């Protein structure tokens, strides 16, 4: 009797183990299969791409689609645009958000400041389609349409509410005593910022930057409607030229462009899994 129970227990454990790996395989397949398919499509020569069944191990891998993107679509220029816009957005945006988050938390007992904070949180609710047309006309009028500054202003604006929310929560975790002690020792505002607040906020700033990088890379609406010539990667992928195929979708180029966007994302996710998880759980950001 006793022996039977023990063996039951172990077979039950093996059963659970098998179920776990089946679930694991199922999820991994559903998530990774499309990503893998995009990758192999991007290195399959166009001539072999429009074939059925799909060859999941391309026989003649080639970088032809990528070369075409570089030579005819201006891939490098679009990568440069994307890097410039996201880079400046992250630097300037993070800087003003750190100041803002600090101000909002330390002076939260002032009515006006707290109202301003609630205003910023409330603006999270305003969908882009509501503001799009007037903002578009305004940007045109003041000459910011289709310019780097114009796009960067809109990109920064889009990351402000989330960033403020996360960073403000984090400032709350820094004891005021530290600052008071420094102030007594004669440290001015900027010194306290530089030597006390910033070092303590490093992890939060890193998390926010990682998530904002992804959400900027995902931004589609802004570059689609507020610029024309300055193309970023997310817009470029929907405006690829149709080469000689009759199927209506330039899948050869689309998959290559898709992989260019996916590569940094996969790398980022693999390296920063923990920070991203923390950030998502803290703020529930939408990429």
């Amino acid at each position: 009797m006793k022996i039977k129970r023990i063996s039951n227990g172990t077979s039950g454990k093996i059963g659970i183990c098998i179920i776990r790996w089946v679930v694991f395989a199922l999820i991994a397949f559903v998530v990774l299969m499309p990503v893998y398919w995009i990758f192999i499509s991007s290195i399959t020569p166009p001539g072999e791409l429009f074939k059925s069944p799909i060859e999941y191990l391309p026989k003649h891998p080639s970088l032809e689609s990528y070369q075409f993107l570089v030579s005819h679509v201006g891939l490098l220029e679009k990568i440069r645009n994307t890097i410039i816009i996201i880079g400046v957005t992250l630097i300037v945006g993070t800087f003003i958000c750190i100041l803002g988050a600090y101000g909002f938390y330390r002076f939260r007992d002032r009515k006006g400041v707290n109202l301003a904070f609630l205003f910023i949180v409330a603006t999270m609710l305003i969908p882009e389609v509501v503001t799009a047309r007037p903002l578009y006309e305004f940007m045109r009028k003041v000459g910011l349409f289709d310019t780097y500054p114009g796009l960067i202003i809109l990109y920064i604006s889009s990351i402000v509410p989330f960033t403020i929310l996360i960073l403000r929560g984090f400032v709350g975790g820094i004891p005021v005593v530290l600052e008071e002690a420094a102030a007594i020792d004669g440290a001015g505002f900027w010194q306290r910022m530089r030597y006390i607040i910033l070092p303590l906020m490093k992890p939060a700033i890193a998390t926010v930057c990682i998530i904002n990088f992804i959400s900027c890379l995902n931004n589609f609406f802004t570059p689609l409607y507020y610029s024309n010539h300055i193309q970023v990667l997310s817009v470029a992928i929907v405006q690829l030229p149709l080469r000689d195929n009759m199927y209506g979708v330039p899948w050869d180029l689309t998959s290559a462009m898709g992989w260019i966007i996916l590569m940094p994302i996969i790398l980022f996710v693999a390296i920063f899994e923990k920070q991203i998880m923390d950030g998502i759980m803290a703020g529930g950001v939408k990429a």
Partner: protein
Amino acid sequence: MYRSKSKAMALLPWLLVLPVVILRAFTTIYPVTKTIRDSFFDIRLLAGKNVFCGFENYIRMFHDPKVLISIQFTVIFVFVSMFFHITLGVLLAMALNMKFKGQRFLRTIVLIPWAMPSVVAGMAAKWAFNNDYGLINDLIRRIVPSFQYNWLIYRGSARAAVIAVDLWKDLPFFAILVLSNLQFISGDLYEAAKVDGASARQCFTKITLPLIAKGVATLCIPFTLWRLTSFDLVYSMTSGGPGEDTALIAYRITTEAFTNLNIGYASAMAVVLFLIMMAFSLINMRITGSKKFET
């Protein structure tokens, strides 16, 4: 000396917060006001028209078959997608919570759909659902060799495909947020239940579900709002087709505003959408007691 310093101190908070406040005000207050104003005007750029028309835009919208189809699909999209978000999302969260060797790998890969742009998923999906060369039919044909179906040219299957891709991309995100609720449940509870002889199923229905129910309900509000304003996916995957069958309301509004240039009409629709979203959030604040932003 002292006086001027205290004055500077009084200004300091505003110096700190003004950049972000001004930026957000610039991108929201003026445009929202202008959209509300425009919604009462008949503005057609192509016809060079700009006259006051009262509530005409609002009345017209509920007789416009295109808009009605958009509203219909938006409602279906939100309900079906949210239903699967909740059911599959909880299951996926529990899978991500399994303690075993593959845990970290699993958590990492489910971040990929969340982190990639919707347009990339949409463009890939457009081709994946192609009858002849798409991934979906290719996989099906490996089991049912004679399978032929062109997903995106029929109303029902095109709508199902859009919802499926939306789930593929967003379900992991929902699951991660449910996971953060799961992690708050103390392991002692399960231990105690096991000692009392509870089955795995009882553990799930009597401990897990009640404890995450509120968290999941709270999550539903922002996820519903995001579905209501979903634009990128349909733009890249179906362009609203076949016909107008997958044109979500946000896509409809943008098309009117930027392609057909019926600005007054588009503004009226945007205002209605905005009011619906406000109603949702107010309900949400009532339920959660707006505790989230108090510190």
